[in-house]
């Protein structure tokens, strides 16, 4: 079913009785597929969609242990930007940003991409220097990023306190106007619907518990699941915080640790916050959803955990920073908080790669900031799987960069989270 003005008008007139489920959700998988994607988050669903639409490798299934989008995709604060420091990262994230710009049209599904501008604050001389370095590096790489004075930052985001009296005064800000937010669930649903329409089987409630391999070649031959064994020629693992556990099923140790990351939302209010503001120094991120809630991102806990619930002091720390930067929100009440488990690499850059096991591919390590990359990640990972050869944008993000010492050290570059 395609969405159109005509269809909307027709359904409005007949009490919305004609809408059908957006994607097929077969209870039982087929006995075998050409490609199985493990993980029904945004990245896995996007991978399946681009495989089916651009490469046609045969039959494709997405296996999801819970419900699609129930992982980090449905738990994130949806900040989208591409102003990363290194050329490899800028190329990857800007590839994604360009796809975001046409995504609703391409999927015929409103993902509510809203390029309202992402402003990153500087609170110290070091922040100013590193922010300016990013602005210059980005402009050389053809990625938009501009420097604002405190007065310009205030004009762009009126609730911001730019007075000199606060503990960490705003000394400037980097603004990427093409950055913004999107609706997280709609991204999962939109890709699922488009992939399903191209014949991809999306199997929910289907946990992978083992990886079968050929005793001689070691190649992947299938997976064991809660719904029985499924044969496959190629397996793409897109399991975010659970990646180490899945890869261990194929005997591989990963350069990953999994940490809880939390976010929270306020009670809904009238539109008051026009953009996205991030501060890495005092560690707080904020935007306002279309429902009116302030969406606030906190930090990770310091220890690896799969608990999906971080420490309360982490939320407290973030709210202190928010109240300091935006005194207007001091009396606002928070509605709910939650956590996701994010998989973090030593250089804070993702892994998009073939592996030493033939037929096994992995897309992980997006840590605290992979939502923004969803379309680009799926697009280059699909090509990597289909051709059994890294897509040029994915090539620097291979698993063997750690042995080769070719790290893409965004962590050291900026200490940025999202």
């Amino acid at each position, binding site marked *: 079913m395609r969405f159109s003005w005509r269809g909307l008008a027709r359904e409005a007139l007949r009490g919305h009785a004609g809408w059908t489920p957006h994607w097929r959700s077969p209870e039982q998988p087929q006995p075998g597929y050409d490609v199985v994607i493990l993980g029904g988050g945004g990245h896995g669903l996007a991978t399946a969609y681009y495989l089916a639409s651009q490469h046609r490798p045969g039959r494709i299934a997405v296996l999801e242990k819970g419900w699609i989008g129930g992982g980090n995709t449905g738990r994130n604060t949806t900040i989208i930007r591409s102003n990363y420091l290194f050329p490899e990262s800028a190329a990857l994230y800007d590839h994604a940003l360009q796809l975001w710009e046409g995504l609703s049209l391409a999927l015929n599904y409103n993902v509510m991409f809203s390029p309202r501008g992402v402003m990153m604050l500087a609170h110290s001389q070091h922040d100013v220097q590193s922010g300016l370095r990013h602005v210059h590096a980005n402009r050389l790489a053809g990625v938009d990023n501009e420097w604002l004075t405190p007065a310009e930052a205030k004009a762009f985001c009126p609730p911001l306190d730019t007075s000199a009296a606060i503990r960490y005064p705003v000394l400037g800000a980097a603004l990427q106007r093409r950055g913004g937010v999107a609706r997280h669930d709609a991204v999962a649903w939109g890709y699922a619907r488009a992939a399903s329409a191209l014949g991809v089987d999306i199997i929910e409630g289907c946990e992978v518990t083992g990886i079968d391999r050929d005793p001689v070649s070691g190649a992947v031959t299938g997976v064991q699941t809660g719904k029985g064994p499924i044969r496959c020629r190629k397996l793409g693992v897109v399991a975010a915080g659970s990646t180490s556990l899945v890869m261990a099923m194929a005997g591989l*140790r990963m350069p990953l*640790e999994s940490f809880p990351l939390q976010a929270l939302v306020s009670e809904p209010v009238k539109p008051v916050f026009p953009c996205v503001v991030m501060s890495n120094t005092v560690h707080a991120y904020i935007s306002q959803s279309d429902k009116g809630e302030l969406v606030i991102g906190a930090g990770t806990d310091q220890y*690896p955990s799969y608990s999906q619930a971080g420490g309360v002091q982490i939320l407290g720390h973030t709210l202190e920073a928010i109240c300091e930067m935006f005194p207007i929100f001091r009396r606002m009440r928070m509605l709910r908080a939650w956590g996701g488990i994010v998989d973090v690499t030593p250089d804070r850059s993702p892994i998009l790669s073939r592996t030493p096991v033939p037929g096994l591919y992995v897309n992980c390590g997006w840590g605290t900031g992979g939502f923004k990359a969803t379309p680009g990640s799926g697009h280059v990972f699909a090509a990597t799987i289909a051709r059994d050869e890294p897509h040029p944008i994915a090539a620097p993000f291979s698993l063997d960069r*750690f042995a080769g010492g070719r790290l893409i050290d965004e962590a050291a570059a900026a200490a940025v989270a999202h």
Partner: protein
Amino acid sequence: MLLIACPWCGDRPELEFRHAGEAHVTRPADPAAVSDAAWTGFLYERQNPRGLYRERWRHLHGCGRFFNAVRHTLTDRFLGSYPPGGEPPA
């Protein structure tokens, strides 16, 4: 917030501690003699288990000393702490 038992100071709030990574990751005695794969394993690859996990902590805002602990990473419950070089609790 976790309540963490320093082997020397007893139970203290997590704010006094700094997590210091997986425990019992030993630096090869002669780095030049190990393969790239073994060196990568030492530097970067981690067990990252869902279950019992042996980890290092430092009582940064206390006695300053490093120690080890065993924690379940799904419940975050500690089984116990032990000094460096000691045996993990059974």
